[in-house]
């Protein structure tokens, strides 16, 4: 009993030693991070629109050109995801800080260098689902908007999935353009297509089971593909 008590008593002691070391380290790093934060903020203001206090589409374009990246590049969408940006075409200070801090970038060149790592991070399966659904939400610009028109969906699909599921995306885009049942795509259908790409062997579709409650649009898509193949 006694021994147990001593052991218990010993513990806080050791942590206090540890914590003091951590504190020391923290205070040092916090000093560094304040400086970094200042640099991140000043970078923000160099692109922000003075009147709105936001980086607007214009600002984003000039940021892109400084990084020598096209503004329609998927990596910009990834950057928006990293910043958890809510409004398409705009970054606010809060979002900018979140994004750049976690990318450990406080200059344009650092940011540019961080992009390949960012892409790797996004491509990790655990993140990619989140990014994929984010991409859809990011495009909902209107209040209460729940679906996106076919034309935009086709572009977005190509952007986010095109490199990974080239054939599936091409076929689906072709189908979307000739069918007339759907004018818009909703989140459920959007996520359904991603699952489809991941789970269904393409182009033979051998493991597609329409009993499995796929969104109807995918049933129709598969039917169309099969008709086309035969």
């Amino acid at each position, binding site marked *: 009993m006694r021994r147990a008590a001593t052991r218990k008593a010993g513990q806080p002691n050791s942590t206090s030693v540890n914590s003091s070391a951590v504190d020391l380290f923290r205070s040092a790093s916090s000093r560094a991070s304040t400086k970094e934060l200042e640099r991140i903020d000043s970078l923000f203001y160099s692109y922000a629109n003075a009147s709105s206090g936001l980086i607007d589409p214009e600002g984003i374009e000039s940021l892109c050109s400084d990084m020598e990246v096209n503004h329609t590049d998927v990596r910009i969408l990834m950057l928006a995801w990293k910043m958890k940006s809510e409004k398409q075409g705009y970054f606010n200070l809060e979002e900018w800080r979140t994004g750049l801090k976690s990318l450990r970038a406080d200059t344009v060149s650092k940011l540019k260098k961080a992009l390949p790592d960012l892409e790797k991070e996004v491509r990790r399966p655990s993140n990619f689902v989140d990014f994929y659904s984010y991409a859809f939400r990011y495009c909902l610009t209107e209040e209460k908007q*729940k*679906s996106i028109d076919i034309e935009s969906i086709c572009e977005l699909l190509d952007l986010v999935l095109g490199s990974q599921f080239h054939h599936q995306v091409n076929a689906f885009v072709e189908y979307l353009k000739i069918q007339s049942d759907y004018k818009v795509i*909703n*989140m*459920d*259908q959007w996520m359904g297509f991603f*699952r489809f790409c991941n789970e269904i062997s393409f182009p033979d579709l051998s493991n597609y089971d329409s*009993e*499995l*409650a*796929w*969104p*109807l649009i995918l*049933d129709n898509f598969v039917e169309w593909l099969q008709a086309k193949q035969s």
Partner: protein
Amino acid sequence: MSAQKKRNFQIEAFKHRVVVDPKYAEKTWKILEHAIHEIYNHNASGLSFEELYRNAYNMVLHKFGEKLYSGLVNTMSFHLKEISKGIEAAQGELFLVELNRKWADHNKALQMIRDILMYMDRTFIPSTHKTPVHELGLNLWRDVVIHSSKTQTRLRDTLLELVYMERSGEVINRGLMRNIIKMLMDLGSSVYQEDFEKHFLDVSADFYRLESQQFIESCDCGDYLKKAERRLNEEIERVSHYLDARSEPKITSVVEKEMIESHMQRLVHMENSGLVNMFVDDKYEDLGRMYNLFRRVPSGLSIVRDVMTSYIRDTGKQLVTDPDRLKDPVDYVQRLLDLKDKYDKVISLAFNNDKTFQNALNSSFEYFINLNARSPEFISLFVDDKLRRGLRGVSEEDIEIVLDKVMMLFRYLQEKDVFEKYYKQHLAKRLLSGKTVSDDAERSLIVKLKTECGYQFTSKLEGMFTDMKTSQDTMQGFYARFGTELGEGPTLVVQVLTTGSWPTQASTTCNLPPEILGICEKFKSYYLGTHTGRRLSWQTNMGSADLKATFGKGQKHELNVSTYQMCVLMLFNNADRLSYRDIEQATEIPAVDLKRCLQSLACVKGRNVLRKEPMSKDIAEDDAFFFNDKFTSKLYKVKIGTVVAQRESEPENQETRQRVEEDRKPQIEAAIVRIMKARRVLDHNNIVTEVTKQLQSRFLPNPVVIKKRIESLIEREFLERDKEDRKLYRYLA
């Protein structure tokens, strides 16, 4: 103590030495043996039963039971051998007679012997486990007489020969036959079975196999069945006359197997006389015979049922898909009813009201009625026709019969909601034009629909009746108040229809003639005065009018016309010639309706109160119209119908379909939500099944449509997909 020996004394029983004459046993047996001989020789009258009994008793008592028993066996065997020889010697027909006679003798003798040896039977035999006297006698008869090498097969062949002769129509001595069979049965059921029944069944099977083959080659199905039935009855009769009752199921199953089971398919499908021909020719007797015979064999009825089902399905399918039939909906439904009547009659007269056949009939109707998407419409049109004129002068009971039949067809419909749509439309027309023959019949049908489909289904239909009644009261009130004031002007009858209860019609109004407008306005203010907060709008496309008209030579007619037609005709009070454009402008009747109404006023012979230039069947937009002075008619009252297709045109049909589909959406969604609210989590297929089950009393929802509704509910966040299992949906409260 231990040294002292204990002695037990035993008192021995007194040995009573019975000195018996050493020859006693032999002597006594001789007496008995002699008696047995005498019995077999029919000389028993001189024997003393008392003496013989005592002798036998004494022999057993003096431990000569064994001698007595073996002596009996030997003596009896000896006599039976003699008898057997006699029987074997009998010629021809006398064989059975002799056998029968000797059997009777043996039985009599056996009875006496048993009586004499009663004491042995009671004491010696049970203690030595020997066969009792009577049984011994039977066994010896069996072994010595029946199973003698010469008799055994001869007996069997003789019996079978007699059966064969009887089957071939000859008369045999059934009494003798019965006695012989009875003998075999008395000898033990195994004797009957082994020596007769087994062979009897084999021979019968061969006989019927051969005979059925001959019949089926030479007879038609009906005759064959008659013959089979007769044979079956003959066999049953045979059993009752001279065979063991337990043989009946065996022999009938032989006949059933050989005559029916082996030929079922061929019989049912027999060309020109098979089952289908029996249906076509209404051969109830043959059908009944087939039913009764086929039910005796396994799967017999299912063959009949399957053929019936597929035949009804084919006939029904032909009926409902025949384009000619689509031209006359009333005839179409009448034919369906006739078809149903026909098979109802078959099932009740010939098929013993068999439930499985009724079910087959029902499922067949359900199958083909729904092949034609217009069946609901046509059934409603049939009712419409009956309630408009078909039931006039028909007794109340007959009306009920017709309505019940309609309800039966209604039950087969999968799309009951489509029927409801049409029924509502047709009922509205009947009510508004006052064309319904019997209010009771109308209500009776509504009650039937209500019991079938519930309150919801008929609430709106009932609302229509209420409206009619209320309108009557309202009109009475109106005239009570303004009657004198209105004087000689036109009489107005208004039916106030509650929105929602009546079929929705595009509200197309037209300009009413000034003569009418006044009283209309008066009514409107009267009505709104008593019912505040309501809105009245005139449905001029649904009304009708009676006009008094005077023609060229002063002849007067009363014209029964629609409101539109009235509007047009009233214009001719002030003009003799009006162009199409004039009329269109003055009345503002929609072009389609105006053309129809002008067509019926100017182009129908005998109803042409207007004249058209140029003369043609169709109305063109640059036509001119004149009041037809020369109009004549034999009748005072002239009814000018509007040219309307009774059944819907293709585009109208499409429109109704679409409306039905739209109406189904909320019902499907409500069902999904109800189910999910109760189950919280459910997989796709189960939702589809449950929704279908919930809605099937009204219609059969398409699984794809259900899926669409589910997706819509997901989008509106009533449901979500499970994160792991794609098949599952979760209810979001």
